[in-house]
């Protein structure tokens, strides 16, 4: 019980240490989490031959996945890289903090970030007249699993990158690449057959399919949720393994 309370306190401290950053830099945060995905949504609608309700829904799903990916991989990755390469991680390691508390603190921070970004995006969609019949539970489960998976990837990249620039390049590439390479904004049929099986089971593609159902008021498909859960578990386990306070 004492250990659990200690861990929760550590997670809360890590969250607050990073929350100060969002507080101080709200502008770029809004830009990253909301404006870019919104612009992509508007762009996708504008270039589509004809915007049916199904297409509008797909574009909205795409924008939510892009927002998730930007906040959980690109932005979080940048923050983790900055922590590592400016000596903040070293400073944290001087305290009796457990590496897993750091990981969960970061995940809690990413969760709040994601919630803010997606809420703003859904609000914008509502104001733009996009019809959404949201099934809240499947929606929250899907977003949570996707966020855990993408956060895990972010931690793996940030802890293994050999330099700040290498890590930054990788998190940016993953953040955008995982969305545009996967059938998120478009149908899988458009993809070349050779890459289709891989692209269809990328975490972003699974998230998009599950969210599409949730936005239609239906339960998310089980295979997608199971795949996301497995990928989230694997990514977080790898991330936790990469985080060590003692170097060899």
């Amino acid at each position, binding site marked *: 019980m004492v250990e659990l309370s*200690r861990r929760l*306190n*550590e997670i*809360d*401290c890590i969250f*607050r*240490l*990073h929350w*100060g*950053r969002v*507080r*101080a*830099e709200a502008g770029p945060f809004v830009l990253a989490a909301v404006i870019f995905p919104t612009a992509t949504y508007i762009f996708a609608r504008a270039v589509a031959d004809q915007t049916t309700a199904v297409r509008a829904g797909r574009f909205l799903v795409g924008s939510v996945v892009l927002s998730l990916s930007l906040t959980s991989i690109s932005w979080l990755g940048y923050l983790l890289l900055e*922590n590592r390469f*400016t*000596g*903040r991680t*070293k*400073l*944290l*390691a*001087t*305290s*009796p*903090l*457990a590496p897993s508390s750091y990981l969960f603190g970061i995940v809690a921070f990413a969760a709040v970030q994601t919630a803010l970004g997606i809420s703003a995006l859904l609000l914008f969609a509502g104001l733009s007249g996009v019809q959404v019949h949201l099934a809240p539970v499947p929606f929250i489960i899907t977003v949570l699993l996707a966020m855990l998976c993408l956060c895990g990837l972010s931690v793996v990249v940030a802890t293994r990158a050999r330099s700040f620039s290498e890590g930054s390049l990788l998190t940016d590439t993953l953040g955008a690449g995982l969305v545009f390479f996967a059938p998120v904004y478009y149908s899988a049929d458009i993809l070349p057959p050779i890459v289709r099986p891989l692209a269809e089971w990328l975490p972003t593609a699974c998230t998009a399919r599950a969210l599409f159902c949730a936005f239609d008021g239906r339960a998310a498909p089980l295979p997608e949720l199971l795949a996301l859960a497995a990928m989230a578990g694997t990514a977080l386990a790898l991330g936790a393994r990469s985080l060590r*306070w*003692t*170097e*060899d």
Partner: protein
Amino acid sequence: MLATENMLQEQEHDATETGTAVRVRDLIKRFTDGTVANDRISFDVERGEVVSILGPNGAGKTTLLRQLSTELRPTSGTVQILGRDAFAAPREVKRLMGIVPQEAGLFDSLRVGEHLALFARLKGADARQARRAACAIAAALDLEKRADKRIGTLSGGERRRVLVGLALIGAPPLLLLDEPTTGLDPESRRIVWQTIERERARGATIILSTHYMEEAERLSDRIAIICDGRLVAFGALDELNAHAVRRAAQSAPQGAPAPFLSLSAQKARDHALQRQWNRHARPSLEEIYFQLTGKPLEVDFD
């Protein structure tokens, strides 16, 4: 003053206990590129002692401190901190230590008081205790007026003082300070020295690495001289002096009028230490360092 009322009750540090605080045995650190940064280093530091680790850049001081703080695993050898194997229980050991790494970053967007309080909470204080600890430490390091300022707006010296403050939280029985005053302005250096002296008076054991002879002479009970990864000498200033004289005598060529002619090279002849030693004055630490290592302590400051 920096001890915050029963802040870490479960730990109940008694900094005034007697015995060995740090025991290092046959410590070797060989990096993957083959560099041997520490070579069979062994020493004991008693509780309540202040020990300075002295050596030029690249001598192995930081590597040694990183191993004491459990940040770096030794290739072989053992480190015991207050009777505990440092690498068997690093979290437990870190609860007993305050560490100032040489290169550590602060969270720039936080305010000074907030930063100190959050780290106090990481060390086990509740919110109220953490706020009190933050105030006490800010006052001790002359940062009271900066407590509401964001870290990002502080000068280099003030940031370094915050780092020292973070190490002092919870009044740990052991402080490891890696070049705590390097690059500081004289005022900040004076404040850090006063803080170290206060911690010594509290009974804390302090190990600090430094380039500065004056710092080592002023603050230390004993001095460890490291050169090329090896512990060349370890003792109080007088002991180091005696050791240097013995060493010089052993290596002096027969018939030489004084042991100090053994200092190799013409550079040595011109060196001020020889004049001073030949006048039988007590040599400075810089001169002792030169005698023991055969090298001047050349340091690139800043």
